[in-house]
C-alpha cells in the first residue's frame, strides 16, 4: 500500500499539482454539504480534466483500495458526496465542455462538469429552438449529477425524470475501463441510452457514483417555443389536488405542474398554489392552451373550490424564472442558511396525507416548513418535498429539523412512497423494505462492477 505522500505524488503526476490538494481548507470544504448529514473529510481532492485522467485515478485507487467519490456541485443536500470513508473526492467541474449539439436529433453531449446554467445559456445563444429540462436547483448543479440522482425539471410532467432524458453515457468503470452506454456504443450518434440495445444505463443512474464515474452524458433536447406563461390556480382542499393534477395532465398542454404549500409569506397560508406552465409560438397557441386548461378545471371553478389568481407580468417573472429562485429564498427563511428536504417519489393520490403529515411534524418539532410538489410523467407519480429550513448556528433547531425529516421519510415509505436521493440512513430504510431478491441482484451488480468496493463507499451498501 502506498503512503499518503506517495499517493499524493501519484495524483499530481496524473492531473498536475495545481489540481490536487490535501490542504485542510479544501478537505474541510469537500467534507460537507448544505444539508444535515454529519461531515467527513476526504484525504485528497483532485480535479481531472479528461476521461483519461479519470481512468488513471480510478486505476490507482483500485490498486490501492482507496475510496473514490465523484462530485458535481454537491447540491443534493443529503450527503451523497460526503466521503464517508475518506479517500479521494473527484471534483468533475474541470470537465466542462459541451461537445456536441445535434439539432436534428435533438440531443447534446456534455462532459461531466457542465452545469445546467451553462447549458441553458449555451442553448439560448446557439440553438434557441432547443431547450433541456432545467431542475430548480441552483444553476451550478451539474447535468450528470442531476441525472445520477434521478432529478426532475421543467419538462418532467411531459417527459419524466431528467434521467429518463439521458441519451447515452460514457463511464469509467471502477476497474478503470472506459465504457460507452447506449447508441453511442455502436454509432457516432448519442440518440438513445438503451433501446434497441439492452439498457445498461440503469447500472449507473440512481447509483450515486457507486458503480462508476460518468465522464460524458448525452441529453435529450426538446423544442423551445417562443413564449411561455404560467397560470396560477389556488385550491384550499388538499383532497382535490390529485384530481386537479390529473385534469391538468390530461390536457397534454402543460409542460410542468408545481404545487406550493407553505404558511409564510401570508399570501400562501391556507391555500395550495398550483402552477401550470405552458408554452407557445404565438399568442393564438398560448390562448388555445389557456382555454383548454380553463376547461379542464371549470367544474371546480364553478363550485368555487378552485380559483385563478390574477397575475401581473411582474408577479409572473419570478414564477417563470428558470431555475426558480424561490428555493434558495426558502433556504434562508430561518436565517443561518440551513435547508433540507425529504422528497419522496410517490403516487399523486398521497398528496392529502403527505400535506397533513408535513403540518403535523412541523408543529411537533417547531420547525418552519414548506412543500413543493412536482408532477412527473403525466401523473405517473409526483415528487413531494417535506422541506425544513433551519439556522446552522442553532444546533437544537438543526436536531429538530433532522428528526422532522426522519419522521417524514419513514412516513413516506409506509405510505408507499420511494425516497428520492436518499441519504445513507434512508438508503438503509429503503433496503430494509426492498424485495430480498432485488437486494441480492444489487449486491451482485455492485460486486461485479466494483470488486474492491472503492466507489463512494457507505452508499447503497447491501449487507
Amino acid at each position, binding site marked *: 500500500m502506498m503512503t499518503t505522500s506517495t499517493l499524493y505524488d501519484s495524483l499530481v503526476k496524473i492531473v498536475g499539482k495545481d489540481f490536487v490538494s490535501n490542504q485542510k481548507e479544501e478537505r474541510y470544504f469537500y467534507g460537507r454539504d448544505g444539508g444535515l448529514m454529519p461531515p467527513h473529510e476526504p484525504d485528497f481532492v483532485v480535479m481531472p480534466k479528461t476521461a483519461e485522467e479519470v481512468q488513471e485515478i480510478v486505476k490507482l485507487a483500485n490498486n490501492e483500495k482507496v475510496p473514490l467519490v465523484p462530485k458535481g456541485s454537491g447540491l443534493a443536500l443529503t450527503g451523497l458526496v460526503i466521503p464517508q470513508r475518506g479517500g479521494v473526492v473527484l471534483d468533475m467541474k474541470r470537465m466542462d465542455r459541451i461537445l456536441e449539439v445535434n439539432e436534428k436529433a435533438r440531443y447534446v453531449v456534455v462532459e461531466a462538469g457542465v452545469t445546467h446554467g451553462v447549458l441553458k445559456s449555451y442553448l439560448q445563444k446557439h440553438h434557441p429552438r432547443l*431547450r433541456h429540462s432545467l431542475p430548480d436547483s441552483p444553476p451550478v448543479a451539474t447535468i450528470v449529477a442531476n441525472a445520477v440522482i434521478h432529478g426532475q425539471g421543467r419538462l418532467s410532467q411531459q417527459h419524466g425524470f431528467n434521467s429518463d432524458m439521458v441519451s447515452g453515457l460514457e463511464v469509467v468503470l471502477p476497474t478503470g475501463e472506459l465504457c460507452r452506454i447506449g447508441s453511442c456504443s455502436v454509432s457516432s450518434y448519442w440518440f438513445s441510452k438503451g433501446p434497441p440495445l439492452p439498457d445498461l444505463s440503469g447500472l449507473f443512474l440512481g447509483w450515486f457514483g457507486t458503480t462508476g464515474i460518468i465522464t460524458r452524458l448525452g441529453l435529450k433536447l426538446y423544442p*423551445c*417555443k*417562443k*413564449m*411561455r*406563461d404560467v397560470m396560477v390556480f*389556488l*385550491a*384550499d382542499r388538499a383532497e382535490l389536488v390529485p384530481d386537479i393534477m390529473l385534469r391538468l395532465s390530461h390536457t397534454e398542454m402543460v409542460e410542468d405542474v408545481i404545487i406550493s404549500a407553505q404558511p409564510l*409569506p*401570508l*399570501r*400562501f*397560508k*391556507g*391555500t*395550495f398554489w398550483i402552477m401550470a406552465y405552458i*408554452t407557445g409560438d404565438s399568442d393564438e397557441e398560448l390562448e388555445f392552451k*389557456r*382555454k383548454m386548461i*380553463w376547461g379542464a378545471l*371549470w367544474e371546480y*371553478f364553478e363550485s*368555487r*373550490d*378552485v*380559483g*385563478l*389568481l*390574477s397575475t*401581473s*407580468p*411582474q*408577479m*409572473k*417573472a419570478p414564477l*417563470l*424564472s*428558470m431555475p426558480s429562485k424561490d428555493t434558495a429564498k426558502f433556504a434562508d427563511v430561518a436565517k443561518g442558511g440551513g435547508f433540507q428536504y425529504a422528497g419522496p417519489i410517490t403516487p399523486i393520490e398521497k398528496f392529502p396525507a403527505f400535506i397533513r403529515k408535513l403540518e403535523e411534524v412541523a408543529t411537533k418539532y417547531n420547525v418552519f416548513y414548506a412543500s413543493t410538489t412536482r408532477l412527473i410523467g403525466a401523473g405517473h407519480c409526483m415528487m413531494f418535498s417535506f422541506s425544513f429550513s433551519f439556522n446552522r448556528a442553532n444546533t437544537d433547531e438543526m436536531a429538530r429539523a433532522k428528526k422532522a425529516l426522519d419522521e417524514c421519510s419513514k412516513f413516506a415509505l409506509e405510505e408507499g412512497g420511494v425516497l428520492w436521493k436518499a441519504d445513507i440512513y434512508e438508503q438503509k430504510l429503503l433496503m430494509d423494505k426492498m424485495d430480498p431478491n432485488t437486494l441480492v441482484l444489487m449486491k451482485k451488480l455492485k460486486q461485479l462492477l466494483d470488486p474492491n468496493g472503492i466507489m463512494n463507499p457507505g452508499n447503497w451498501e447491501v449487507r
Partner: protein
Amino acid sequence: MRTLLFTCYACEEYCPFGNHPFYLIVERQEEKGILPAPRPIITMWINQCQPIGRFMVGKVAERTLSYCFLAQFNTLVKGKLFDGIASSSIFGQEFFCNAVYLHYAKASVIKGRLPKIVENVKNQGIKELVCLHDECYGTFTSLAPAYGIDVPFKPIHYYEFLYDRLKALNDEIKPLNVKVAYQRNCSARLCPEIDHYVDDIFGLLGVERVKREYDRENALCCAEIFRMAKGPALADDIQKRNIDDMVKFGAKYCVLNCPACWDSLAHKVVRQGIKPIHMIDLCRLAIGEEQALNLSESVAEV
C-alpha cells in the same frame, strides 16, 4: 344563480341618494354566503393583507403620503412633484385600506380591520393623508363614514395634490399635446367628485382626453377582478372592448390611475400601439422628467 351574482362598484356612482347600494349588496352577499370569487382566492386575499405589525414609515409629517399596501408607489414617488413630501410616507398591511374586500363580499373584514387602520394612521400624528390610490381615498371618504367609522384626519386625493403641485410648477410645464385615453378604475366609483381633477390636470398638461365610449360614467374597469370571479371570457371581452375603444379614438397614451389597472392592462395596451403611463408619470413628463413606472421587460423567460 346566487353564487354567480357579481356586481361592480358602479352603482355607488349612479345612486343619486347616497344610499350606498354597492355596500348593501356586499353585505347581503356575505349574509347569504354567496361567494363572488372562488373560496381559495378570497382566503388568499384575507391572509395576504392581514395586519401583523409589519409596516414601513418614512419621516412622517402632519401631511403624509399613503402608499397603502402598493409597492409600486415606491417607484412613482420621486422628482419635483413630491419635493418636500417624498420622505413622508406610510406603507404596509397596517395602513392597508381594505376596500378590496368589497370585491369578495367580505364587509366583515373591512369592518373588523378598518378601525384599527384608521387608528394606526392617527397614531402617526398625521393630519392630512394624501391617498395615492382611489381605493384609499374612497375608503376614508365614503366607506368608513358609511360604516360609522370616524376618520380623524383629512384624506386628500392625490389628484388634488398633483393639481396644486403642477400649478406651483406651471412655469416648467411644456404642453404634451397628445391624445390620451383615461382609464377609470373600479374604486373611482367611490369618489366620482374627484373626476374633474382629471380634466383640470389634463388642461394644465396640454393633453386631450379623448371622448371615447368607455370613459366617465360609462367607463369599463380593468376587468381583472372578473377574471378571478367569472373566468376569462368576460374579462377578455371587457378588456378587448376597452382597448379597441382607446385605439378607435386615436389615443397615444393610456393614462392609468391604479397599480392594479397597470398590472392588468399596461402590457395589453402596448400590444395595440398605445403607451401605458401612470397619471403621476404623465405629470412628470410635462415638467421634463422621465417616466418612472415602466413595463417589465422580463415578462416571459423561455
